[in-house]
């Protein structure tokens, strides 16, 4: 491990060691980003197919029959294939996008630089964790091409549907087993990654970089790695047991006397609720694994563009800690109606409502900090503002779902779908967009095209609201989620709303091409970036070059003299003072 590091600080020469099996955290970060990009595009296309199928259930969708002959005969998506697409969409997005992009990708690239380290603590583990993730990705995607196609039990894979095997439907054979293996492997990768993040943050901070002087996003990545260390350590054995139930005939999750489409199951005594408990014990923290890094990134970028520090750096960090801590006491609110003891519903409901307190504090601090700022409007800061708006919209709907009594009506409706897409999906993705526009100059040495960036923001912002706000109306009407067609009498009048959503989704997805074009174009043709284009104080902007050299600081050790956010102060270089600058600052924050 550490010996790897001994040799790691000599830059590799061969292409393979440089770009493929690289030990350099920057390369690995970019690899994670690329993987997330592939996953997000795939997941988006899947959601397109689902949306189109939902509003025109019996009309062929050109090209889909090419994806699967059985799943979509003549391009008409069958009910089971709709569910397969939905499962893959959820799994790809949650695991390979929302966990990888804000946490693994940006964290890998910038955490070591922001604390003044040369590399991660265990570069070899770092490389392993990426390539293990890649293997997990391949296993998951291979489910498209084997047997009856991908599993149809959703990303939550509730047992016994996910455990009894092919009897419970097409895709529940090989596909579901591959799903279990993929997630198992993914857990190993995430554990290696988190281990690395924690050790790096604790041990590799440079001179003067006390914990209190770490930027908020570093804090966010650190807290997130602590969460994911424990969360994935629970999901891993859960997946092991699930796969054993499927392939080895054990009965951890499968009770006695199940008759699944005329096949009496040879299992007995298992507990379906056990899977739900294990899964959600991971599943709820996973939500914060997705959103905390985005919060950190947004805070960081917002501060830079406001030219003033947040009202309180510490409070925000404490709030993130509180959220991380509480996230382990609330998993049961996903199971209010799962037949738990009804008293436990309240036990879980209370901390859930309590989580709104730190979340509100953070929101108020973001808003309060905007007051009296010199807010610079650019693609990055716009996405930060968009994040705040989305976070609020998705957050308040959590208020409903946190209450078991209201959950009786809204559980498993589109209200829930709207809630988590806004607060976990879109908000986190906005954080990633902001980070991309902000750090692109550091990662490539070129600026991203501002005009395209703003265009991308306006369309995405309006588009996502058009998609996900109506979900809440549908939920209030009792529109059940995970339906591949709306055959119920009370759902038919809602189809116009679904049509509107589908159009919005197609539009919003299409405008993401602007972003991808911008990425590629700016990478090669973008304007050359100055050393510190945003006038940001943190260490990543003290590196000798963009992108930084192999060991980040050109064989030197930065020394940190200040808190991360010295803005709005008289400094030698305008209204800010670099963390590495030894000059004295009149009033410290």
């Amino acid at each position, binding site marked *: *491990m*550490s*010996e790897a590091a001994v040799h*790691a600080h000599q830059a590799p020469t061969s292409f393979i060691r440089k770009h493929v099996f690289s030990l350099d955290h920057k390369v690995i970060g970019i690899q994670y980003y690329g993987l997330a990009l592939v996953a997000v595009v795939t997941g988006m296309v899947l959601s397109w197919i689902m949306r189109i199928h939902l509003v025109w259930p019996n009309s062929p969708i050109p090209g889909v029959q090419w994806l699967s002959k059985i799943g979509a005969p003549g391009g008409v998506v069958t009910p089971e294939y709709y569910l397969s697409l939905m499962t893959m969409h959820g799994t790809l997005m949650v695991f390979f996008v929302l966990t990888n992009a804000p946490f693994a990708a940006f964290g890998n690239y910038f955490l070591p630089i922001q*604390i*003044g*380290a*040369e590399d991660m*603590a*265990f570069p070899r583990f770092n490389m392993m964790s990426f390539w293990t993730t890649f293997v997990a990705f391949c296993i998951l995607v291979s489910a498209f091409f084997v047997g009856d196609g991908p599993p149809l039990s959703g990303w939550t894979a509730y047992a016994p549907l996910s455990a009894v095997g092919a009897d419970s439907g097409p895709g529940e054979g090989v596909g579901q087993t591959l799903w279990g293996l993929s997630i198992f492997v993914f857990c190993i990768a995430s554990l290696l990654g*988190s*281990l*690395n993040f*924690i*050790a790096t943050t*604790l*041990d*590799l*901070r*440079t*001179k*003067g*970089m*006390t914990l209190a002087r770490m930027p908020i996003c570093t804090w966010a990545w650190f807290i997130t790695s602590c969460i994911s*260390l*424990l969360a994935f*350590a*629970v999901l891993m*054995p*859960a997946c*092991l*047991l699930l796969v*054993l139930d499927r392939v*080895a005939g*054990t*009965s*951890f999750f499968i009770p*006695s006397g199940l008759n699944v489409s005329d096949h009496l199951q040879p299992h*007995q*005594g*298992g*507990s379906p*609720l*056990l899977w739900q408990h*294990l899964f959600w*014990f991971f599943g709820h923290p996973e939500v914060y694994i997705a959103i905390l890094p985005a919060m950190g990134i947004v805070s960081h970028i917002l501060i830079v563009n406001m030219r003033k520090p947040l009202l309180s750096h510490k409070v925000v960090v404490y709030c993130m800690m509180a959220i991380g801590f509480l996230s382990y006491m609330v998993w049961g609110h996903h199971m209010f109606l799962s037949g738990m003891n009804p008293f436990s519903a309240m036990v879980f409901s209370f901390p859930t409502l309590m989580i709104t307190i730190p979340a509100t504090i953070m929101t108020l601090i973001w808003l309060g900090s905007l007051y009296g700022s010199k807010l610079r409007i650019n693609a990055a800061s716009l996405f930060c503002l968009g994040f705040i708006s989305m976070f609020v919209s998705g957050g308040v709907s959590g208020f409903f779902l946190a209450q078991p009594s209201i959950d009786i009506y809204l559980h498993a409706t589109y209200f829930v779908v709207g809630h988590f897409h806004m607060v976990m999906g879109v908000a986190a993705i906005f954080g990633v967009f902001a980070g991309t526009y902000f750090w692109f100059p550091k990662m490539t040495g070129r600026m991203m095209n501002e005009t395209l960036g703003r265009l991308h923001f306006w369309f995405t912002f309006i588009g996502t609201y058009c998609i996900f706000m109506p979900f809440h109306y549908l939920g209030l009407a009792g529109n059940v989620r995970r339906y591949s067609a709306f055959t119920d009498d009370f759902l038919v009048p809602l189809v116009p709303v679904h049509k509107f959503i589908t159009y919005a989704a197609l539009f919003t997805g299409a405008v993401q091409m602007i972003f991808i074009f911008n990425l590629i174009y700016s990478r090669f043709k973008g304007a050359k970036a100055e050393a510190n284009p945003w006038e940001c104080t943190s260490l990543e902007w*003290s590196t000798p070059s963009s992108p930084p050299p192999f060991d980040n600081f050109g064989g*030197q*050790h*930065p*020394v*940190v*003299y200040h808190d991360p956010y010295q803005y709005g102060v008289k400094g*030698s270089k305008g209204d800010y003072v*670099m963390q*590495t*600058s*030894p*000059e*004295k600052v009149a009033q410290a924050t």
Partner: protein
Amino acid sequence: MATTLQPPQTDLEQESRPHDGNGSGGGFRGLLPSRGDLRAVADPRGEPTRTGIWVALSAIAMTFAALTSALYVREGAATDWHHIQLPNILWFNTSALIASSIALELARHRVSGYMRGLELSRSKAALWLNATLLLGGVFVVGQYLAWLKLRSQGLYLPTNPNSSFFYVLTGVHAVHVLGGLGGLIRVMFKFHSTRHPLRRSTMDATSYFWHFMGALWMYLLFILWLKL
């Protein structure tokens, strides 16, 4: 030695250079032995391996906590909870694992003595390392024999929840023990190599992991004896 990137501006009042800052500076320098003499090797402050091992152990602990709670929930739901007779060889395996931990402690003492120069020959330390490795191997083989014993009684993985949990818990533990053995082999290799010096932290981390495996096994044995 580390230097600042911005040369201090003379016209400005300067902060005093921080002496605190618990970081190693993220540096991995000064670790290569001079002329291959291991005694020159010293860890920097805040050696990541020390932290890393505790983080890793906490994750492993969490995994087994999850499995334990699964065991309890499953038993609560069970109508088919048949107790099984634990193979006696487990007790022998346990003693082997404990012995290996003791041997490893002795080895660590010798190794550190050797590295601090108090002791001149490697052989004693190497001997104890070999003993540890051997006893660890004995444990793994013993576990395998325990599985064969259960199979001979017709208790397979799917037979009943107790046998399922027995195989799962011992199996996952055995995998970790194998990992520990790998770590030990790595330590011995480094102990004898001059290109890759053995560092205190590596030695310590490996032994913490190994002792943790012992403690974990005690815990598992208790659970198995209590529940299965």
